[in-house]
C-alpha cells in the first residue's frame, strides 16, 4: 500500500535536488562573474605600491642633463666636447646600412630640423607644416622662445615672482593635496598626481643649452624642492593617428602648451599661498619616473608612461615646490609591463628601430660601448631604447614621429568599449595579451603611415 507513495517522494526529492544543483550552479556562475568584475575594476584602478614600482639598483646614477639627447643635439659646445659620440653613432649607422649611409651630426643636422622643403606626400605639405609650427608656437612663447628642455625660461623661470609672505596652512595633508588637484583641474590638467621629490629622477647638473651653462641645485636653484606635482595634458587622438607625418606635431606642440600653461598657473597658485614653486616641462627632471611615482601611469616598452584611458597619448609637465604638508599619491601598476612584454607593436611600428624587442633589463641591450650608450640610464629594470636612432629619424622625417604612441593598443579615444577591453586585459594572462594585440590590428586600430588619416583630419572641422 505504501510503495507508490515512496516512489513519488523519491522522485520529488530527486527533482528538488536537481533544482537545488541548478540554482547552485547558476549562483556560482553569477558569483564568479561578479568576482571577476570586481577584480578587473580594482586592477584597472591600479595596484598601489609603497615604493617606486620599478627595481632600481644601488649603483644607479642621476642623469647628467648634458647627456639628455635633445640637450646634446641643441648644444654646439657639447658636440665639440664629445666628438666620439657622433663618431660612434656614425660607425653604427654605417654598419647597419652601408649603402644608404649619410653622415649624421647631432648638432649640425638639428639646426635644419623642421625647415626642409614641403613634399607632395599627404601629411608633409605646407598645410601640415603650418599646423605643426602653430601647434608649438604657444608652448614656445610660454617658455620664452626656448626649447621644451630649457630650464629657467618664460613661465618656468626660477624667479619667485608673486610670492606672498604669509604661508597658507592647510588643515590636513589631504586637504592640501585636494586643493592643489582642484586648482590643476580648473587650469586644464587631464590628470594630476603629487609625489615626494626623489633626487634620483632630477638631472644633475641641470644644463641650459641656450647659454651653454651648467646649473646647480644647491647654488643656482632658488629653494630646496620637497614635492613634485605632475600634470598630464592630452594629445588629440585623430591628429596623433596621422603619425609619423608632420600633422602629429600639431597636437604634440598643442599638448605641450596646455601642460606648461597648467604648470605655470599652478606655480602662481602655490606662490600666492606662500610656497616657492617652479614650473618645469622637460627640464629639471625626468618626467616618466615622476609620473609613475605620482601614480599616474606605468612605464611602457616605448619609454613613455601609459596612463589609464589615454595610454601614451599625453604630455607631462611638473611643478617643483617646497610645500611639504600634502598627501602624496602612491605609485600604481595597471598590468602595462606584462602587456608590453607580449605586444611589441610600438617596436614593430618604430621606423628607426630604436625601440627594443627585448625584455626589461638593467642596462641597454643594443650596445655596451660607453661612447654609444652615453645617454642611457643604467641601473633601472626597464625597456631600454636607443634614443639616438629616434632623434635621427626626426631629422630624416623633418618632423617628429609619434608612431610608438599612435600604434600602442592603449592609445584609444575615451569610449566605453575600450574600458571593457582594458578590464579584460588586466585580468587575462600573458598569452592572451598577444591575442589582444592581434585583435587590435584586426579591428583596425593603431595603423601608422596612413594618408587616409591625414585626409580625415582635414574634414573634422565640420563637427565643430
Amino acid at each position, binding site marked *: 500500500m505504501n510503495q507508490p507513495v515512496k516512489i513519488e517522494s523519491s522522485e520529488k526529492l530527486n527533482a528538488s535536488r536537481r533544482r537545488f544543483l541548478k540554482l547552485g550552479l547558476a549562483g556560482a556562475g553569477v558569483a564568479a562573474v561578479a568576482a571577476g568584475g570586481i577584480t578587473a575594476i580594482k586592477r584597472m584602478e591600479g595596484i598601489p605600491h609603497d615604493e617606486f614600482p620599478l627595481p632600481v639598483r644601488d649603483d644607479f646614477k642621476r642623469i647628467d642633463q648634458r647627456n639628455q639627447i635633445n640637450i646634446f643635439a641643441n648644444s654646439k659646445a657639447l658636440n665639440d666636447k664629445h666628438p666620439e659620440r657622433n663618431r660612434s653613432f656614425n660607425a653604427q649607422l654605417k654598419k647597419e646600412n652601408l649603402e644608404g649611409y649619410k653622415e649624421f651630426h647631432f648638432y649640425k643636422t638639428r639646426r635644419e630640423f623642421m625647415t626642409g622643403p614641403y613634399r607632395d606626400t599627404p601629411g608633409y605639405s605646407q598645410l601640415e607644416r603650418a599646423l605643426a609650427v602653430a601647434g608649438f608656437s604657444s608652448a614656445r612663447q610660454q617658455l620664452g622662445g626656448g626649447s621644451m628642455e630649457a630650464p629657467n625660461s618664460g613661465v618656468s623661470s626660477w624667479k619667485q615672482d608673486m610670492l606672498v609672505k604669509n604661508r597658507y596652512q592647510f588643515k590636513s595633508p589631504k586637504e592640501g593635496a585636494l586643493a592643489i588637484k582642484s586648482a590643476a583641474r580648473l587650469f586644464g590638467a587631464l590628470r594630476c598626481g603629487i609625489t615626494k621629490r626623489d633626487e634620483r629622477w632630477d638631472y644633475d647638473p641641470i644644463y641650459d643649452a641656450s647659454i651653454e651653462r651648467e646649473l646647480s641645485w644647491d647654488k643656482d636653484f632658488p629653494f630646496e624642492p620637497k614635492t613634485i606635482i605632475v600634470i598630464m595634458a592630452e594629445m588629440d587622438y585623430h591628429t596623433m593617428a596621422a603619425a609619423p607625418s608632420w600633422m602629429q606635431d600639431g597636437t604634440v606642440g598643442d599638448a605641450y602648451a596646455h601642460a606648461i600653461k597648467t604648470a605655470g598657473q599652478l606655480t602662481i597658485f602655490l606662490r600666492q599661498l606662500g610656497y616657492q614653486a617652479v614650473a618645469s616641462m622637460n627640464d629639471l627632471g625626468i618626467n616618466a619616473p615622476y609620473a609613475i611615482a605620482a601614480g599616474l601611469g606605468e612605464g611602457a616598452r616605448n619609454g613613455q608612461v601609459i596612463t589609464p584611458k589615454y595610454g601614451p597619448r599625453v604630455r607631462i609637465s611638473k611643478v617643483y615646490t617646497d610645500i611639504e604638508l600634502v598627501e602624496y599619491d602612491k605609485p600604481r601598476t595597471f598590468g602595462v609591463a606584462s602587456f608590453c612584454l607580449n605586444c611589441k607593436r610600438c617596436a614593430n611600428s618604430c621606423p628607426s628601430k630604436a625601440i627594443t624587442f627585448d625584455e626589461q633589463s638593467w642596462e641597454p641591450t643594443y650596445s655596451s660601448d660607453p661612447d654609444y650608450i652615453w645617454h642611457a640610464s643604467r641601473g633601472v629594470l626597464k625597456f631600454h631604447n636607443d634614443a639616438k636612432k629616434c632623434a635621427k629619424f626626426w631629422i630624416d622625417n623633418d618632423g617628429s614621429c609619434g608612431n610608438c604612441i599612435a600604434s600602442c593598443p592603449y592609445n*584609444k*579615444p575615451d*569610449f*566605453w568599449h575600450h574600458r571593457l577591453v582594458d578590464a579584460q586585459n588586466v585580468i587575462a594572462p600573458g598569452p592572451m595579451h598577444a591575442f589582444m594585440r592581434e585583435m587590435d590590428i584586426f579591428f*583596425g*586600430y593603431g595603423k601608422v603611415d596612413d594618408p587616409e588619416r591625414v585626409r580625415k583630419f582635414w574634414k573634422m572641422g565640420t563637427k565643430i
Partner: protein
Amino acid sequence: MMDLTWYILGVLTGAVAYSLYLTSKNITLNWLSWSGLITGSALILFSIAWAVGSVLEGVPRAASMGILLFGLSGVIILTLTARMIASRKEVD
C-alpha cells in the same frame, strides 16, 4: 549620440526581456534554451552598441568587425537555439 544609443538599447533590452518572458509562458524552456536565447540576444545588443561607439569614435572598420564577430555570433546562437526549441516541440 551615444546617449541616444544607450536609450534605444535600453528600450530594445526591455523588449527582448519581455519577448523572452512571453516565450517562456507559451513554451517550456530548458536551461540550454534559456542560455542560448539570453546569450544570442545579449551579443546582438552588444554588437549594436559596439558598432555605434566605433563609428562615433571614427573607426568604421572596428564597427564592421564588431558586427561580424559579436553580431553574427549572436545570430548563429539564436538560430541554433530556435531550431533546438522547434525540434523539441515537434518531439513533444
